[in-house]
């Protein structure tokens, strides 16, 4: 299986109180559990990312519950307003319990 790799686009610097856009993407097949194997005709078991969360300095900022109808390689875009410098941590939770994460530092002036 392809390696699961998170990618995020976050500005390195921001002004306090200014809206900044955050774009996130993770490579993941998001197997819906409704597709059939072409050779065996059996259902391919569901395996999706069911939760995405963004935390800033340990506080939840934004999160999303996902169902199988979210497209493969789930992309999520949202905006935040920060008042202090810190670290944005992104976590994706897989159906099998694994958590994929990435962190980005933002300096706020």
């Amino acid at each position, binding site marked *: 299986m392809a390696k699961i790799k998170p990618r995020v686009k976050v500005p390195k610097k921001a002004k306090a109180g200014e809206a900044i856009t955050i774009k996130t993407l993770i490579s993941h097949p998001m197997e819906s559990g409704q597709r059939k194997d072409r050779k065996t005709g059996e259902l391919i078991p569901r395996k999706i990312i069911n939760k995405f969360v963004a935390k800033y300095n340990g506080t939840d*900022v934004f999160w999303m519950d996902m169902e199988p109808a979210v497209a493969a390689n789930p992309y999520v875009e949202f905006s935040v307003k920060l008042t202090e410098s810190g670290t944005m941590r992104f976590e994706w939770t897989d159906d099998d319990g694994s958590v994929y994460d990435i962190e980005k530092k933002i300096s706020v002036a």
Partner: protein
Amino acid sequence: MQMTRRDLFALAAGLAAAGLIQVPANASEDAVEAAIKKFAGGMPETGGVEIGAPEIAENGNTVPIEVAADGAASIMILAAGNPSPGVGTFHFTEMCAESRASTRIRLASTQDIVAVAKMPDGSTKMARREVKVTIGGCGG
């Protein structure tokens, strides 16, 4: 008005056709209504929620969708014509610049997208928008 036998047949055929068409549509519409009620605790009023989506999506496997509702704490997205209507729910906090987010979703066929927003005070709003799909995204 005199009812001829031909009229009666036409009427019966029309009713049967309407009945046949309604059955599958209702089955899925029930699931949508159940999901809305579970999330909102009732049927919300229409309006106050924005759905950004292409009018025609060529590939149902990945359809860009944006939802926004002023001040909402969470927004749920449903795809009324998918095998299972649930798509996802965004949750916002005070650190979000606005209650707006986008993602990419799968659509099995031409159908309505429903977005339901929940405000911090518990009130709810909803919006509905049709997206035409050229190639469905639930193949197998």
